[in-house]
């Protein structure tokens, strides 16, 4: 489990994150959502230790990451896998070498064992015959899947995904979301996903933290979102008329009641 306790981060005089706290449990997809500039990437970077917060704690299994010595931090980091927004694959290495890199660095497995593991994770992310290809030869979706394979190759306890769907078409986004969700449940990983993709929110959000201007504005599950009265959250999630209708339909399914007149009129018209 990851506990975020009263995190505050400033850049100069600008407060980017203000007193954010959250609990992220294993075996579920924990989503951090919010508009661009709301501080979700900074929060994730604080969580993985790429940025040091000015105040607060990030606890992995109860131990504050920022009170640990270098060796303890390194040990925690070996349990972390991260999928970056731009995939962050090593350009000069092939797909196979990219995925094998953490194995080469941190295991004493033999070459055939490592290759077997690489092929296992590649198969798990539905990729075949790409071992010898370089990242430049892959599509955006394939790069994300290779990066996901690299992130999980060491069986991490924590998986961080920074906007895994950015730049992908809706269908590929769904594939990536499904993969992240399946891997989370299958290996009981504590997964933290930064996203502003509404499909991801409604499909995978076991726990959702909504950030607004650096503060925690709302938290709950994807089911709670449907019934939320938080205006900022509703404006962000259900920004278009189409999504507002989708929300109303879902509410109708759940409660048997229509939430407002607007949709009743729309539905009558149709």
């Amino acid at each position: 489990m990851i506990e975020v306790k009263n995190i505050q981060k400033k850049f100069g005089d600008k407060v980017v994150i203000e007193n954010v706290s959250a609990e992220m449990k294993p075996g579920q997809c924990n989503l951090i959502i919010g508009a661009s500039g709301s501080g979700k990437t900074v929060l994730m970077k604080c969580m993985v230790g790429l940025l040091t917060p000015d105040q607060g704690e990030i606890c992995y299994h109860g131990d504050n990451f920022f009170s640990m010595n270098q060796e303890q931090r390194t040990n925690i980091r070996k349990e972390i896998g991260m999928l970056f927004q731009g995939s962050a694959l090593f350009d000069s290495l092939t797909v196979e070498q990219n995925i094998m890199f953490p194995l080469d660095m941190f295991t004493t497995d033999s070459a055939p064992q490592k290759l077997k593991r690489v092929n296992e994770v590649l198969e798990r992310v539905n990729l075949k015959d790409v071992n010898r290809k370089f990242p430049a030869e892959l599509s955006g979706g394939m790069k994300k899947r290779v990066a996901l394979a690299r992130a999980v190759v060491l069986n991490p306890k924590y998986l961080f995904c920074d906007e895994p769907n950015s730049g992908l078409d809706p269908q590929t986004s769904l594939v990536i979301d499904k993969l992240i969700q399946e891997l989370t449940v299958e290996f009981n990983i504590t997964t933290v996903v930064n996203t502003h993709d509404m499909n991801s929110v409604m499909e995978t959000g076991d726990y959702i933290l909504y950030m607004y201007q650096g503060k925690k504005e709302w938290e709950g599950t994807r089911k709670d979102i449907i019934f939320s009265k938080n205006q900022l959250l509703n404006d962000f999630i259900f920004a278009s008329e189409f999504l507002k209708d989708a929300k109303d339909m879902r509410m109708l399914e759940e409660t048997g009641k229509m939430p407002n007149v607007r949709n009743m009129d729309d539905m009558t018209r149709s």
Partner: protein
Amino acid sequence: MRLLSDIGQFLLMLKGMFKRPEKASMYWKELMHQCVEIGIGSLGIVAIISVFIGAVSTIQTAYQLVSPLIPLTTIAQIVRDTVILEFAPTLVCIVLAGVAGSRIASELGNMRVSEQIDALEIMGINTKTYLILPKIAAAMLMIPLLVIIAMALGIWGGRLAGTAAGIISPNIFDKGLAADFLPYNVFFALVKGYVFSFIISSVPAYYGYYVRGGALEIGRASTKAVVVSCVLILFADYILSALLL
């Protein structure tokens, strides 16, 4: 103020490099890779420059030594000493600052901008040790070797040009080469080679590692790295000459 901040950050970067490697075999592999990139990768340009610099210095020396009182062996002596003392270490290293230095800065800059360095950090790898130390070590291993090759090729180029132009016969040139030879000059050139190789690798590594922004900033960092390296090489050249000669 900015200069002091840069020097401080540069020194912290150097300090941060000296951490225990996560796995020695991976670092060895990276060191060998960098030796090939910096050493073998720069061999062609070093060879071409050395041969032509030697050739030009023979012709120009002969052009200036018009007095019949000066023996022809003096041409070989001047070519030998200028190539060993200045052309091979300094000129070659200035060229290498452009070739290897810009490559180091742009490679690290690209890794920084595309979050590859962050990815390594997340894996628990000390990126300064893994990415910068092998580059500096490889440069300090390979560049002095390139300087030695440059010395040999420069002198050979001078001999070839002198013969081809009918300025000096090979026998007289060889005789001049052996006359009043000071092995200390080679030692001095190697000292310069070591100092310059540190500058060529560490300065671009600093600019590349701490780059912020996008492709434009990578280009700027690369250019700045080469300019600063060249200025530092010339400054170090003066200091070393004043101290050691």
